[in-house]
């Protein structure tokens, strides 16, 4: 895959031909992508797909065996204090001293950066304002993860790395977290996110790359990726007296009946649905359990990796 950047200044991350081996295992295999300034970029993949290795190379923790990596215009392995000052990290797992309060911990980190956010604003952003003086040992797992995120954004970074940030969150905490990231994006922060939650990537990411066994197997916007997975599906139950054959003739749709369920793949969804619904309206038929389903990123993931997420 060859990527030519139209305007490299607009990209906060440039990766070309990145390869990393551990013994005989090629963890990252000829990976190339770029992340535009101000965007949320998602790296998707199962455990062991190479997400964390890729991110750790971008963060400067690991060296690539081959390829070229530029983060904010700098080779991460040579990135010094001034470079780190512009970057925020949320690693996959890190633990804290349980004896310190949230504020004490966030304050310690604020001191490392030249233009930190205020502690109050940071805690507000991650939704920990009411836990400011609680000791970390008394927080729930999800709340600790938010402390982690607070430490990632305290330096008001231009670029934020988030390695599976919402693992262990309940659904409502995850929603809040997404809102927070969208807020950071509108404030101009670029974000690279790894996740194995398809819904998260679909909701948040401007661009997505799907990794499988160290390679990028698909890349694009979530809409363009979903288009890859094909057409809209229609389903309803076959109840007593329903003549699927007539339905098929009148609507011009080929149905596939399996047991009690009839389904069809719609190539031209709008016209086909219109014909079907006009006919059932005229004939006074009521379709039971009728649904029209667009493919999701899950389907794309299944298609390109051959595995469920």
């Amino acid at each position: 895959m060859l990527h030519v950047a139209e305007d490299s200044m607009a990209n906060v991350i440039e990766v070309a031909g990145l390869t990393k081996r551990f013994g005989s295992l090629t963890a990252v295999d000829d990976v190339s992508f770029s992340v535009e300034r101000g965007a949320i970029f998602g790296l998707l993949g199962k455990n062991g797909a190479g997400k964390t290795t890729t991110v750790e190379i971008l963060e400067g923790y690991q060296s690539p065996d081959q390829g070229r990596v530029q983060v904010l215009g700098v080779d991460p392995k040579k990135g010094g204090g001034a470079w780190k000052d512009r970057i925020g990290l949320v690693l996959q797992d890190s633990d804290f001293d349980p004896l310190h309060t949230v504020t004490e911990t966030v304050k310690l980190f604020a001191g490392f950066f030249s233009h930190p956010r205020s502690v109050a604003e940071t805690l507000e952003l991650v939704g920990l304002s009411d836990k400011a003086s609680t000791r970390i040992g008394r927080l729930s797992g999800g709340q600790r993860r938010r402390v982690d995120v607070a430490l990632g954004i305290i330096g008001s970074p231009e670029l934020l790395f988030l390695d599976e940030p919402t693992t262990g969150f309940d659904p409502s905490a995850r929603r809040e977290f997404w809102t927070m990231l969208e807020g950071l994006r509108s404030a101009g922060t670029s974000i690279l996110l790894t996740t194995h939650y398809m819904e998260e990537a679909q909701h948040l990411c401007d661009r997505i790359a799907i990794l499988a066994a160290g390679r990028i197997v698909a890349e694009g916007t979530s809409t363009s990726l979903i288009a890859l997975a094909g057409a809209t599906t229609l389903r309803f139950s076959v109840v007593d007296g329903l003549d699927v054959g007539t339905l098929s003739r009148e609507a011009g749709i080929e149905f596939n009946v399996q047991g009690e369920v009839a389904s069809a793949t719609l190539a031209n969804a709008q016209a086909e649905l219109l014909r079907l619904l006009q006919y059932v309206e005229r004939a006074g038929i009521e379709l039971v359990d009728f649904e029209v389903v667009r493919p999701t990123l899950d389907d794309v993931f299944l298609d390109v990796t051959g595995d469920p997420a």
Partner: protein
Amino acid sequence: MRFIRLTLRQAEYDLVAYMRSARTVIFGVLMPVGFLALFNSVFGGKFKTIPVDGHNISTIAFYTGGLTTYGVMLGTFTGILVAIVGAREAGWLKRFRGTPMPAGVFLAGEILYLFVTSLALNIVMIAVSIFGYHLSLPAHAYVAIFCYTVLGVFSFSAMGLALTRVITTSEMAGSVGPFTVVILSFVSGVFLAPNLLPQWLLNFSTYLPLEPIVSGMQHAIALPGGSGLELRPFIVLGIWGVVSFVIAQMNFTWEPQRR
């Protein structure tokens, strides 16, 4: 300037945890003080003086010097081992590495914090001996105690650092540290009068990193005249410290070792 400011903050952060942890307060302060009272009541009545390295010194001076040094080593050697291994395995060191914090700040802050707590232990132990056991110290003793504390904190923390690569869990660090210190204390004139030990063990212990500073402290507290400072502890502990520091420098890692 920034380095100093960040080091002070780090030390303060560590001190906050020290004050909040029952374990560090019990092992760091209450245990040495408790031992002082215990050993003094057991042996203080039987022996007026104890011979140390050619000088007869009072029993309370013997135990004050020995147990204070024991406390400093326990706190520093174990403290740095537990702190570094714990922080590393929790991913905390790795996280620091990803910030613009200068590399030496974490360590400098840790050592400064250990120095402050060691100094505090010295003050408590001396105060208990003076007010509880009528120990009278020559004026030069205070300067000597301060210098020995600086030496001890440097050397013991370097020794702890040198072991951080082979010790991979904080549980292991928490047992190896105190075990080493207690064994060394038995052969270095902390708990037992040196004349109870066989000569070969006594000779051997003078090359180990605890005996020289223990006898130095005991002399400084008990003997009038001179500066109260001896050269031997600085040579022996200096070598232990520098060698340990070089080993630590070669082996140090920010990455968790057990993941």
